[in-house]
Structure formats: structure tokens, C-alpha cells
């Protein structure tokens, strides 16, 4: 099967310090890839390389190749705005924009010129897919800031889905959430993977074991091991992977 995303010798430096060192891997289509690893192991840097968010901050340089459907997304003529619509992102902390629930969901589509009744359809479809519709359908015009943390994160997921992306990047989306909200997000992801390629960075190895089809273990900017989740958790090839998932460090 053709890889949706493939990284070749991907290296990212920030002000001369390597954050990501020579990572080569293929990401399968319509699967969930879990990325685990201790703090500052390069998980988030890798994720943010996939939709070119790193370059928004000064001091980042990169080398290597990142292909989306075989196209180099760092090529000079590659449209970064279009890329971010194809590769959506949900951040660690839910950041609803200070506007209504409805306006949050349609923020991206409106920028692309979608208008009128199409927007309402998108709102319902996206909120349903994020398992939030039933809770907010009667108050779409109220401020998104009034939602609970778990609802806000599902709103952020819906907002990303409304872009109609092909890939969804999630950066520790459940780190600030209670177990019930976490379960709802995981439930949504399990359904969504049939339509999207999902990359889930998580601090919680159990979460990767629960929802990811494949798992990659990062350590100090390097990819240590990448394989089917079942294999990686039961029979890791690398000693360090085993130590991390059994909680010996991290």
C-alpha cells in the first residue's frame, strides 16, 4: 500500500540544537499512528513538521524530505495554506477562538469561501463526527469559551474535521482531559480512521496501546522503533522501547 506520508532522513534543528535527528518512516493510509516517547523526544516537532507549523517560530531549520502523497511539502512552490487544510491539527490544550460554537467550526471553510446553508450542514456533520452534536445542538450561537474542557477539545476536533482534511494530527489531545472526555475522543478517533490518516502524539502509552494501529517510539530526537502496536507493546525489538513502555524511565 502506498504511504500517505513518508519522511526521509528528516532532521529539524532549533537554534542549532537538534530536535529531530534523521527520522525515516512511512505513515500508512487510514490508520492511526501513535507516537510515544518521553518529554523532548521530538514527538511534537515531528508532528508539527507534517503541517509546517515549526516554521512559524523563528530559529527552526530542517533537512531531509517529507512527502504527502508523493509530493515534497517543503518544495518552494508548495502552497502551505492548502497543505494545512489537507493536514489538520488538534493541539494539546483546547483553544477555542473567542467566537460562537458555530463560528469556530466554520472558521476554516469560511476562509475558503464556503457560504450559506453549506456551512450549517458542515457544522452538524463535523460536530456529530466529534461526538459533540447532541450536547451543543441547541446552543450553537453561544460562545465556545463557555464549554467545558472536554467539550472544547471535541470542538477543536470538529473544527479540524470541517476543513475536510486527509490527515489529522493530534498533539497530546487528551493531556488536560478527564477519563470520560478522553474516552469520547478515543471513540471518535476509532470511527474517523476509516476516512482519515491519523497521527496521535501521546504521553500516555496506554492510550497508544488502546487506539493506535501502529506505534512509533521516539527518544532524544531519534526514531527508535516503529511497528504494529501489538508487536511493539508485546515484543519490542529495542531494549529502550521495552524499558519505556514498562515505565522504567520517562
Amino acid at each position: 500500500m502506498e504511504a500517505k506520508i513518508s519522511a526521509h532522513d528528516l532532521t529539524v534543528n532549533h537554534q542549532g540544537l537538534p530536535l529531530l535527528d534523521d527520522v525515516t518512516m512511512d505513515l500508512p493510509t487510514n490508520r492511526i499512528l501513535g507516537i510515544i516517547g518521553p518529554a523532548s523526544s521530538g514527538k511534537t516537532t515531528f508532528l508539527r513538521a507534517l503541517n509546517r507549523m515549526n516554521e512559524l517560530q523563528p530559529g527552526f531549520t530542517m533537512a531531509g524530505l517529507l512527502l504527502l502523497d508523493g509530493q515534497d511539502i517543503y518544495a518552494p512552490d508548495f502552497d502551505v495554506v492548502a497543505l494545512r487544510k489537507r493536514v489538520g491539527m488538534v493541539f494539546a490544550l483546547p483553544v477555542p477562538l473567542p467566537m460562537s460554537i458555530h463560528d469556530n467550526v466554520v472558521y476554516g471553510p469560511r476562509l475558503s469561501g464556503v457560504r450559506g446553508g453549506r456551512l450549517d450542514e458542515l457544522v452538524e456533520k463535523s460536530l456529530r463526527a466529534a461526538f459533540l452534536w447532541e450536547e451543543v445542538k441547541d446552543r450553537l450561537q453561544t460562545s465556545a469559551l463557555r464549554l467545558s474542557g472536554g467539550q472544547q477539545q471535541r470542538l477543536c476536533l470538529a473544527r479540524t474535521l470541517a476543513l475536510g482534511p486527509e490527515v489529522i494530527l493530534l498533539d497530546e489531545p487528551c493531556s488536560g482531559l478527564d477519563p470520560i472526555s478522553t474516552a469520547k475522543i478515543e471513540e471518535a478517533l476509532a470511527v474517523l480512521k476509516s476516512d482519515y490518516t491519523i497521527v496521535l502524539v501521546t504521553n500516555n502509552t496506554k492510550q497508544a496501546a488502546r487506539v493506535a494501529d501502529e506505534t512509533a517510539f521516539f527518544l532524544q530526537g531519534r526514531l527508535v522503533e516503529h511497528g504494529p502496536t501489538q508487536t511493539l507493546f508485546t515484543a519490542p525489538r529495542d531494549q529502550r522501547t521495552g524499558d519505556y513502555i514498562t515505565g522504567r524511565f520517562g
Partner: protein
Amino acid sequence: MRVHPRYTQKAALALLGGATLLTVAVLVFIIFFVLEKGLPVLSLSFLFTNPQDMGRAGGILPTLIGTVALPVLALAIATPLGVGTAVYLTEYTRESGLTKVIRFGTDCLAGIPSIIFGLFGFIFFVTVLRLGWSILSGGLTLAFMVLPTIIRTSEEAIKAVPASYREVSFSLGATRWQTVRKVILPNALPGIVTGVMLGIGRSIGETAAVIFTAGSSLRMPHSVFDSVRTMSVHFYILAREGISNQNAYGTAAALIIAVLAVNLTAYWLMNRFIARRS
């Protein structure tokens, strides 16, 4: 010898409370002093009739027009320029030597005495550009005078918009300009309005720069090319030349009420805007 924290606490409370009280007392005293002398003169006919005999009798209608026209023109020019500069400095450039120089320049501009702006306006707008003593010359001069305030307050307001909002907007496929328009400016608006209000306050009260550039004609202006007298200038001339102390205080009272009204309206608008968004 060490003073017990209980006493230093009391002393701090007394000093800080005293400072606050003194500030408020001075403000209240000034307002009451002016209103007490000026309110008896104030009436609708004082506001809306033409002055007679140099302002000894009659009303202040032309100065009312001048007081509205100059700040409106000044802010209409300075607001887009200032907010645009602030957006450029914060969103479109990275912190560098050049931005530091620009920022230092605006800070210096803010500290220049208004009479120097008046002199500049007189030489450049009135004489070189041959605009004469006019609403246009005065408005342009005031615009440059309030520009630094608007730039710096807008800059601070824009910087206060959380960086995460920008990230989210970019991650949703927004361009930089779309992010500025949809997320940054709406969230920075209360701060920007504060800067504009400060600008209005400064230009309404300005006297020196206005005499040099808009002149002090008491005739009713018919276009932006006519000279005009503002209420502050009128007050200055009435009091300074001993024409009519009574009418001077009447003018001052009208001016203070106008400033209060502008501020209250701005606060009201801002609160409504904030309430609608959260």
C-alpha cells in the same frame, strides 16, 4: 531596628490609599471648579449660536464645529496609519534592529512637545504645502501628534492576543492577513479603542499646535480649507486677552463635558463589544 510587618502593612495601606485619594480629589476639584463657574453660562443657545463681539457675547457654535472637526480628521488619518504600522511591526516582521529603531522613533515622537508639532505643521502644511491656516492643516498636524500613542497602544493590544490563537488560525489554513482580520484585530479592538480615545483626548485639548496650524478664526468654516477656532483655543484667547472670563469658563465646561461624553461612549461601546463575544 526592625519594624513589625503589621505596622509596615498599615503604613503601606495608608500611603497607597492616600495617593489614590489625592489623585481622585484633584480630579474632582478641577471638574467641580470648572463646572461651578461654567455651568451657569452653559445653555443650548450658548452652544448653538454664533459669537458676537470677539466672544464677549453670543455663543460658541464655530468653536464647537472646530472641536469636532479637528479630532475627527486627525483620528481618521492617524487610526488606519497607526493600526497598520502596529500590525506590520508585530505580525509581519520579526524583532530586529530595524523594528527597534522604528519603535524608538515612535517613542521619541510621543515625547516631542506639542508646540514643536505646531511649528512643524505651520512650516510644512501651512506654508510649504500652501494649505494655509485650515482644518486640514490642523487635522494633519494633530494626526502626526497622536500617531505614536495609537501605534504603541495598538502594538501592546495586538501582542496581548494569545499566541495560541494565531497558531490555531494558521493551522486551519488561514493566511497571515486572514488571521489579522478575523482573529487578531477583533481581539485587540478594546486596546486599540483605548489608544484612539487617548488620541481624541489629546487632540481635543490641544491648543498650541492648533493655533499654529488651524488658526483662530471665529467665523463659521465652510470647508476643510477654512481656518477654525477650537474650544480650547477659544478658552485660551478669551481668558488670556481678558475678553470674557465668564464665557471662557462656559467654554471650558462644555469642553470637559464633551471629553467625559466621549470617554463614557467609548467605554459603553467597548463593554458591549466584549459582552457580545464572550
